[in-house]
């Protein structure tokens, strides 16, 4: 039941925030902040409570389950389940949720209530995606996060927000519909083979499929996840959406929404269609490797700081695709680590960009420079997260990318080498941020307020967690290893 509460809290708090904003904007902010913190506390509580069980690698990977009938006519259940993989991603979700409420504290001044309603409902949709074990419910949650995200970009975004929001919506919706068709075909094929109509993940895992059918259905799922991820060449919505979204929107997009795509590949694409996925792996991995290089090169060429950070996501998520489709333990651990760390480091970079924009009202790198002199704390934080992004040892991103490279080397040498070059290219864009924005002479004679305590707190906590992930990642590995083992054994069994 605690799983349902995770969702209920967000949904109800969203409505409360919308109503309370009539009287006080601060009340709406506090309600949202409290809701995200409460969810974070709940998930940490679950983590601590199940810490013992996790290391014992029990027979069932699920730590918590909730299963209730929803639409019995179609065999649809309200089936939520939590394993180590979902647990970590949920922790990231609520952490970044709290962060995004805090970072929009002064940025959002218009229709504050509606903003927080959207924000919390996106988080509810994302949590639903990470928890759903019924494919209908999964699709439901998948689509549910789109509408509030669309509003977030379209209403509180920057100059070209309408264009960016519509592009985002169309891309994700079209690919989502392909997944819907794929889900339905799987559903009917399962019925043909077994005589039961069900959307239950664990039952659908045992659907016998011909290799052609498996390939096409897999492609339907893959399309939806690849757009969300985003995989080159389906990434074109991303730079626009990230750039035009308000800071909280960019944090959630980069930190969480992209992860739902990667999660879908790990949870659904490979376990449901192991053979088709293995056949398809070279294509996906090649696209991932292209994405790594392409994203880095594009990032290097940007003049808009936010757009630059957006392109780095394309590059980082390329590693995740490589890791997932290599499908060995090292690579998967690396992919997950990259997902978590990218969420934090890129989220922090977006927050810093947002803080800069609030102060100097521009995102143009050309209008910056020499900010270290006037805002040392902000610039120091910028350097820290830029280094994290380029994969400095000691910070979390390094562990993730290193493991992905190791794992990929076993599966596909050439791609591993190309990806390693990608790590190098990251140095160029990361250092470019630092040099253009923070170092050099202060040509435009900026005199800025440095990070206020609220921003300092966010950035500090994010920096500390990244350092923790980089120095002592063992608890993380311990948590998701059983879940990964379970997924791997499913795939082994089906192959």
């Amino acid at each position, binding site marked *: 039941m605690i799983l349902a509460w995770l969702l209920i809290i967000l949904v109800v708090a969203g409505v409360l925030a919308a109503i309370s904003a009539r009287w006080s904007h601060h009340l709406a902010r506090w309600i949202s902040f409290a809701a995200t913190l409460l969810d974070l506390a709940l998930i940490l509580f679950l983590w601590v409570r199940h810490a013992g069980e996790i290391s014992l690698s029990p027979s069932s990977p699920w730590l918590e389950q909730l299963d209730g009938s929803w*639409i019995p006519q179609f065999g649809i259940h309200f089936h939520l389940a939590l394993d180590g993989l979902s647990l970590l991603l949920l922790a990231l979700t609520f952490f970044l949720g709290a962060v995004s409420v805090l970072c929009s504290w002064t940025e959002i001044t218009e229709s504050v209530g509606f903003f927080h309603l959207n924000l919390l409902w996106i988080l509810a949709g994302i949590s639903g995606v990470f928890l759903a074990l019924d494919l209908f419910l999964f699709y439901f949650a998948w689509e549910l996060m789109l509408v509030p995200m669309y509003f977030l970009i379209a209403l509180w975004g920057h100059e070209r927000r309408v264009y960016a929001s519509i592009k985002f919506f169309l891309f994700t919706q079209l690919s989502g519909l392909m997944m*819907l*068709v794929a889900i339905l075909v799987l559903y009917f094929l399962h019925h043909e083979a077994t005589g039961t109509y069900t959307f239950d993940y664990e039952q659908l895992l045992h659907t016998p499929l011909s290799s052609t059918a498996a390939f096409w259905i897999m492609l339907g799922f893959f399309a939806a996840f690849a757009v969300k991820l985003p995989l080159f060449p389906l990434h074109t919505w991303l730079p626009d959406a990230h750039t035009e979204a308000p800071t909280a929107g960019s944090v959630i997009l980069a930190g969480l929404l992209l992860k739902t795509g990667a999660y879908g590949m790990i949870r659904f694409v490979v376990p449901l269609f192991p053979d088709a996925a293995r056949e398809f792996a070279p294509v996906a991995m090649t696209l991932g490797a292209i994405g790594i290089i392409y994203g880095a090169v594009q990032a290097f060429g940007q003049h808009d700081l936010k757009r630059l950070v957006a392109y780095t996501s394309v590059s980082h998520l390329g590693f995740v695709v490589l890791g997932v489709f290599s499908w060995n333990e090292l690579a998967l651990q690396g992919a997950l680590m990259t997902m978590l760390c990218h969420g934090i480091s890129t989220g922090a970079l977006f927050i810093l960009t947002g803080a800069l924009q609030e102060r100097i009202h521009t995102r143009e790198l050309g209008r910056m420079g020499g900010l270290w002199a006037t805002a040392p704390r902000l610039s120091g934080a910028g350097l820290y997260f830029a280094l994290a992004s380029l994969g400095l040892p000691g910070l979390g991103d390094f562990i993730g990318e290193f493991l992905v490279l190791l794992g990929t080397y076993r599966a596909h040498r050439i791609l591993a080498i190309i990806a390693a070059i990608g790590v190098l290219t990251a140095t160029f864009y990361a250092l470019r941020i630092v040099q253009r924005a923070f170092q050099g002479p202060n040509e435009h004679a900026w005199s800025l307020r440095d990070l206020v305590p609220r921003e300092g707190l966010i950035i500090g906590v994010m920096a500390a967690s990244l350092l923790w992930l980089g120095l002592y990642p063992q608890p993380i590995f311990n948590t998701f290893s059983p879940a990964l083992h379970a997924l791997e054994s499913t795939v082994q069994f089906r192959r």
Partner: protein
Amino acid sequence: MNATGFITLLPIVVIAATSIAVMLATALRRSHIAALIVTVVGLCGAFACLFVAAPLVPYDVTPLIRIDSSALFYIGLILAGSLAVVFLCYGYYRRQTHSRPEELYILIATAALGSATLVSANHFASLFLGLEILSVSLYGMIAYSRDLKISVEAGLKYLVLAAASASLLLFGMALDYFELGSMEFGQIASAAALPGVDGVVVLLGVVLILVGIGFKLALVPFHMWTPDVYQGAPAPVSAFVATVSKGAMFALLLRYFDRASARNYGALLLVLTIIAVASMFAGNLLALLQNNVKRILAYSSIAHLGYLIVAFEASGDMAGFAVAFYLVAYFATMLGAFGVVTMLSTPGSDLGDLNLYRGLFWRRPALAAVFTVMLLSLAGIPLTAGFVAKFYVVAAGASALLWLLIFTLVVTSAIGLYYYLRIIVALYSRAQAPVPTAAVGFPASAALGWTLGVLTAIVIGIGCYPSPVLRLIQAMTKL
């Protein structure tokens, strides 16, 4: 006709009586509220009679009319839709003191009568009778704002095209009768199977009948009238044309195909596939070019009827269920969308221009929220009835392996999203409407407010928990 026949026919009889009662009441004394009360009581009474008739079905009341549970279900849907339109009309015409809206209620009652006849028809004669009662009522309803050129033009356009399509329909019926010697749906099926029947003539007849039906459903290429009529007609009447009239026609199509075994003609299914693909593409693409909300909704309804054909072609029980469910969702959503337009309009100056919807959210947040829900439901986004309905349609299509249709549905509904989003963007835009119209500041009417509230509750309720409706549909519309 015996007692059982009379009782099963009671819902239709009560609807007919309602129209007479409203006419008499209006003749006695012109009163808007009295006309409303008589109509509402009559329609509710007819609805109650459905429950009386339910235990006795299926029953053939004369060879013309066959009342079965699916007919009762669709009559119920027609009555509910008409009732919503009646309330919309009341809120709409109350804003203009010198208008004389009482006769509109008579026309709504007769149109509902025609629709109820259609969905229970079992014979070409009753089909044609129902169709003409419906059409003639609609001529009057569409041109009801008779001082308005655009309204009269719409009425005339509908009159001419409906008459033309009715003659094609009649010709088709005549061909089939000539070849098969019967006009009863059930006997057509058995006669067509006999040796010595010229299949080409029969098929030609069926295709002509399909043209007549396609016109009423506004399927491509018989859709030309739709945007003009929707734009010209008073907003509540547009709602009626979009929902009740099309829903009744679609139920008839389902019934005719089932009972007359028209599915056996492969060529016919091919024609339907082409029509569906064309409707989905044309509806969604042409809607992109519009700047008038009523016209956008018109093209959207063309596309939605295309989606319905996808479910229809799936055949079997699944098709019937999916169509029924889609119609329920579509009724609630379209009525809601036109309800919002009604809320912002006065007779003679319907709010169509998309520019005038700019920034509605900042002035009338509740109304804009309702409109958003309806548009998202039309687009098929979760938490709304439209999502479950679209899901059901795709499921039906996938179960019958109709890949071309499903693929078209997926692509075109992604295209369709764009114009729904355009309206939503306008609603939430911070720029205000260039001309602040009187209607936008119009006080909310209780009748309209409640209707919209109930419709929104239905759309979201079905979207979150569709089980009860599904159960009802599976019990009622099993073939």
